C-alpha cells in the first residue's frame, strides 16, 4: 500500500511552471531521495508535500488521506530544514519538545519522549544548552531529534547536510540511514548531491525542470539510465559522451567515432538494436569502464585503444586520466600504478558491454 501518493501535481510560481505533472507513489517505510540540479523543483515538490506551498493542481495523499488542502500541522508529517531552523531563544530540550507542546501532549509524556529521541541521536548531554553553543553537526542532530520525537507518518528532509563539511556529511549520511533502519518510517530526502542520493536511497527520483526524468532503485538508474541526462547525472566523475555513428562491421554493429575510431559492439547488444546502420548515436562510457588492458583478457565485448594521457588527477588509490578519443576529452578511472606520467601511452580496454547508446535527437537511451 502506498504511503504517499502524488497525482498530477502542478505548481506555478507566477508564470514559472515549477512542478509539472508529477505522479509518484511511495510505499510505506521506503527512503526516497529527490535529486536534481538547482532549480529542478525538488525543494518545491517537498515543500508542497509538506503544505508550505500550495499546489495548484493535482492531489497529495498521505496514508490514504487527501491532504493537499490541509495545513502542515494536519498532515502528520515532520520536517528537517537545511538551516536547522532551531529557535535560538530556547534550549535544546525545549526545541525538541516544541512540537509536542504545540500538540498539547500531556506533560508527563514529553520528557521521556524527548530523552528517548536525544539518546537515539547521541545528544542527551546537550539538552540544556542553547543553539549558539552547539556545532554544526550537533545542531543538525537536534533538528532531526525535533522531527523524530513526534512520531509522524512521513518524514521530510530538505538538504539537511548541505551546510556541513565533507567529513561530517559522510558521518551524518550513515546516521540518517541508520535512523531510517531503526525507525522504519517513510522518508523523503531532497539533495543535489548524487553521492548522497546513491548511498542513501531505496529509490531515487531524478527531477529535471519540474518533471520526473527517471525514478527507480539507485543501481537501476546507474546501470540502466533512461536518458542521457540520467546517465550524465549519476556517477562521479560523470560519464563520457562521444558522438558517432552506427556502422556495420563484420556482421555486427560498431560505433564509428568522429575521428575514425571504430569500436565494435558485442553481439548481444547488436542484436537488440536491430537494423540501425548509419544512424547517428552518442556513445556513453563511464570512466570506470575504461581500464588498462590486461594481456590475456579474453572477455568478449572489450574494445582496445591506445591512448596518450594528457592529464592526470591522482586521488591516492585511483588516478583519473584524461585523453582524447573520438575528438572529445575522455576521462578514465585507472589504478594508481597504471599511469604515472603525462604523455604516457597506455593500452586501454573499453568495456562495450556496459556502454550506453543514446539517440542524439531524443536523448533517450537505446
Amino acid at each position: 500500500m502506498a504511503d504517499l501518493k502524488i497525482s498530477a501535481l502542478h505548481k506555478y510560481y507566477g508564470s514559472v511552471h515549477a512542478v509539472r505533472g508529477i505522479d509518484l507513489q511511495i510505499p510505506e517505510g521506503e527512503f526516497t531521495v529527490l535529486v536534481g540540479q538547482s532549480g529542478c523543483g525538488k525543494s518545491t515538490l517537498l515543500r508542497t508535500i509538506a503544505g508550505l506551498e500550495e499546489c495548484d493542481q493535482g492531489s497529495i495523499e498521505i496514508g490514504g488521506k487527501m491532504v493537499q488542502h490541509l495545513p502542515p500541522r494536519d498532515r502528520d508529517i515532520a520536517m528537517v530544514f537545511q538551516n536547522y531552523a532551531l529557535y535560538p531563544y530556547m534550549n535544546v530540550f525545549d526545541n525538541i519538545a516544541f512540537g509536542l507542546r504545540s500538540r498539547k501532549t500531556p506533560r508527563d509524556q514529553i520528557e521521556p519522549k524527548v530523552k528517548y529521541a536525544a539518546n537515539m541521536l547521541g545528544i542527551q548531554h546537550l539538552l540544556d544548552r542553547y543553539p549558539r553553543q552547539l556545532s554544526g553537526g550537533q545542531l543538525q542532530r537536534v533538528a532531526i531529534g525535533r522531527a523524530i520525537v513526534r512520531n509522524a507518518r512521513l518524514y521530510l528532509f530538505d538538504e539537511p547536510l548541505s551546510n556541513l563539511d565533507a567529513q561530517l556529511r559522510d558521518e551524518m549520511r550513515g546516521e540518517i540511514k541508520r535512523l531510517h533502519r531503526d525507525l522504519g518510517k517513510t522518508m523523503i530526502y531532497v539533495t543535489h548531491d548524487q553521492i548522497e542520493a546513491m548511498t542513501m536511497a531505496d529509490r531515487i527520483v531524478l527531477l529535471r525542470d519540474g518533471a520526473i526524468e527517471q525514478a527507480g532503485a539507485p543501481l537501476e538508474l546507474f546501470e540502466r539510465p533512461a536518458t542521457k541526462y540520467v546517465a550524465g547525472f549519476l556517477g562521479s566523475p560523470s560519464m563520457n559522451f562521444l558522438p558517432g555513428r552506427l556502422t556495420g562491421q563484420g556482421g555486427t554493429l560498431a560505433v564509428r567515432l568522429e575521428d575514425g575510431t571504430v569500436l565494435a559492439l558485442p553481439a548481444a547488444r547488436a542484436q537488440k538494436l536491430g537494423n540501425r546502420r548509419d544512424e547517428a548515436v552518442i556513445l556513453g562510457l563511464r570512466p570506470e569502464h575504461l581500464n588498462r588492458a590486461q594481456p590475456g583478457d579474453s572477455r568478449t565485448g572489450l574494445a582496445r585503444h591506445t591512448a596518450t594521457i594528457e592529464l592526470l588527477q591522482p586521488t591516492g588509490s585511483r588516478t583519473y586520466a584524461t585523453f582524447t578519443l573520438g575528438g572529445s576529452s575522455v576521462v578514465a578511472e585507472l589504478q594508481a600504478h597504471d599511469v604515472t606520467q603525462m604523455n604516457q601511452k597506455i593500452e586501454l580496454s573499453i568495456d562495450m558491454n556496459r556502454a550506453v547508446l543514446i539517440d542524439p535527437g531524443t536523448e533517450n537511451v537505446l
Partner: protein
Amino acid sequence: MERGSAGLGAPFLSVLSLRDISGATHLMQSRGAFAERNFKYLLVGPAIFVLLLIGIFPLVYLLMVSFQGITMTETSTDFVGARNYAQLFHDARMWEALLHTVIFTAIALPVELVLGLAMAQLFLERLPGRQIFVALLVLPVVVSPIVSGATWALLFDHRFGPINQIIGWFTGDTTAILWSINPKLVYPAIIAAEIWQWTPFMFLLLLAALANVDKSQLEAAAIDGAGWWRTFFRIVLPAIWPVMAIAILIRGLDLFRLFDIVWALTKGGPGTMTETISIFTYVKGFQQFETSYTAAVAFLVIILLSVVVMLALKRVELAR
C-alpha cells in the same frame, strides 16, 4: 505571485469524485493553510482601518470644505467654486510663508549635512571613549522641538542668556541682543536651534554609512595612489549616497513642516517674518477661523508635498 487555486475547477473535481472523501474535504478549499488568504487580510485590517481615518478622511474633507465658503462669520456650506483657491494665489502672506519655509530648508539642510558629514568623518576612526561621545551627541535629537526652542530662547535671552555673555567677551562690552525680536537676527537664531537639534541626526546616519563603506575599495584606491580628496569624492560619497538621500528626504520633509521650534522662539514673529507655511495654516484655521480658506491652504500643502516626495522618491530609487 499569488496564483491561487483558480486553476482547479472541473478537472480537480472530477479527479476528486473518484476518491473516497471522508468529511467535506472538497469544501476545505478556503480552510486550513489556505485560510491564510483570509488570515492575512485579517492582520492588516485594523491597521488599515485606523490609517484610513487620517489618510483618506481628511483629504476628502479638505477637498470638500475648500470649495465651500465657511469663515468665522459665514457658516453656510454652499459651494463657492474655486474662490478660496483664487484667493490663495493672491495672498501675499501665504507666499511669504512659503518663502520663509523654503529659506529655512535651503539653509539648514545643507549646513546639517556638511556638518554631520564632517563630524562623522571625525568620529569614524578609532577614538577613545567614542561610545560616550556618540551617546551624548544623540541627546539633542530626542528632545522635543518645543523644548529645543525653549532652550535656545533661554540661551539667547538678552538679559541673562550665555550667548549674549559670550559675545560680550569678544566685543568687550555688554551686549543685549534681542535675538527673537531683532528682525536681522531671528533667522540665524531659529536656524541655529534647528541645526543644533538635527545635525546629530545626520551625524549618526552618516557615521553608520561611512562605517559600512567597503574597506577593500579604499585599500585599492590607496594602492593606486589616490589622495584623500579624490578617494572621498570618487569612492566614499557615491558609496554613501543612498543613505544621504534618505537622510535628506527625511530632514527635508521635516523642515518643510517646521512648526514647533519656530513657535517656541518667535511664534512666527516679529509680525509674520518667520512664519512658516505650517504656522500660517495654523493661524488661519485656529486663530482666524477661516475654515474653508484654511482647508484650501492645507490641501495645497498636501499636494505640494506629495509632488516633492514623489519626485524625491524617484531620484532615490534611481540612485540605488
